[in-house]
């Protein structure tokens, strides 16, 4: 049991970046992001016994993590809080990295305003999944995935423009 838990935590350590990205897409404040991160780890652990190693760990993890994020409820006491600030650090020494970080911050800020399914579509798109794979993972038709993804991208574009950023 201990070994299994350690093996699992090692896998999480290796994939923590992607869980963090999902948490950042679905929750706007750092406290809520941390809660969601913990919840995803918890749900992954609960389902870990049934992970058959037929697919890669990351494919399995995406599905469980997104299903968790889609139905995750914010803590009620924090529900009225919104965050429009630009958190995180912007590296001053590397101009390219600074540009990328600014772009990401605008992206994360805009993505908060998308519906839960739209966030999942955008996530899979950014992870280079095809329309067919997105449809399969979300349980919708390929056509529906294409239409909804295009709509989500349009919405995202408008939101980023509204933030005053060139798109």
């Amino acid at each position, binding site marked *: 049991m201990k070994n299994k*838990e350690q093996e*699992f*935590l090692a896998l*999480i*350590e290796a994939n*923590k*970046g992607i869980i*963090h*990205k999902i948490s950042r897409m679905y929750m706007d404040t750092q406290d809520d992001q941390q*809660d969601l*991160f*913990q*919840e995803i*780890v*918890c*749900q992954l*652990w*609960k*389902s870990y016994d*049934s*992970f058959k190693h037929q697919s890669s760990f990351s494919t*399995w993890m995406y*599905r*469980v993590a*997104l*299903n*968790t994020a*889609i*139905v*995750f*409820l914010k*803590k009620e006491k924090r529900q009225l809080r919104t965050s429009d600030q630009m958190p995180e650090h912007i590296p001053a020494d590397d101009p390219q*990295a600074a540009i*990328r*970080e600014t*772009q*990401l911050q*605008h*992206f994360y800020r805009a993505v908060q305003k998308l*519906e839960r*399914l*739209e966030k*999942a579509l955008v996530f899979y*798109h*950014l992870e*280079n999944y095809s329309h067919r794979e997105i449809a*399969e*993972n*979300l*349980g*919708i*038709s390929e*056509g*529906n995935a294409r*239409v909804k993804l295009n709509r989500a*991208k349009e919405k995202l574009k408008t939101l*980023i423009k509204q933030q005053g*950023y*060139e*798109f």
Partner: protein
Amino acid sequence: MNFDDIKSAWNSEEDNSNIIVPVKIDSKKAALPVDKIRSNMRLEAIVQVAALMLMYFVPAYYHFGVVMTTAYYCVYGIAVAITAYYFIRFYFFYRRISNTELNSKDHIYAVYYDIKLNIEMYRSFTYALLMLALGLIITAVFFIPSADAAALSNKPIGYLIMVMTVFTALIAIATEIALHRNYGRYLKAIKAILDEFREG
């Protein structure tokens, strides 16, 4: 900026040093609707078992006569059987953890229908017990001779109908409020997500 820029920034986002993975998994942190419902169910089960245990001592506490005690325990036995049946059903629901490995739509449908089914089970359980309680009251008032019962059975029939109706209505209102508080709001939230999956 365009989507290729976002993709490139997304792929190069590698500074994970500030992300802390827990050293131990705390499964009590669960905050999904199903988990919240499960915790409500645990509480309800404890309250119901405690109530049934207390109800066992009612005839002795109120010094019921032989006939009333017999009638009471007949109804009590049926209540225990009904409770046991529903507890088994609730237990299966409780154990059937929503499978987070399904595709997202199936997962959300499973959560939605599990919650809906549980609401209906809870409702039918409450009304089954309510009917038993009403049956017991009617038995006590009309079929068991005692001074109090005689006084009550001499009341106009309209009065008794009104009392029964108000009693039933109050239980029904309390049930619906409890259902909304414990399950309904989660069902509404899940339904809204489910609507996002519709074609078009």
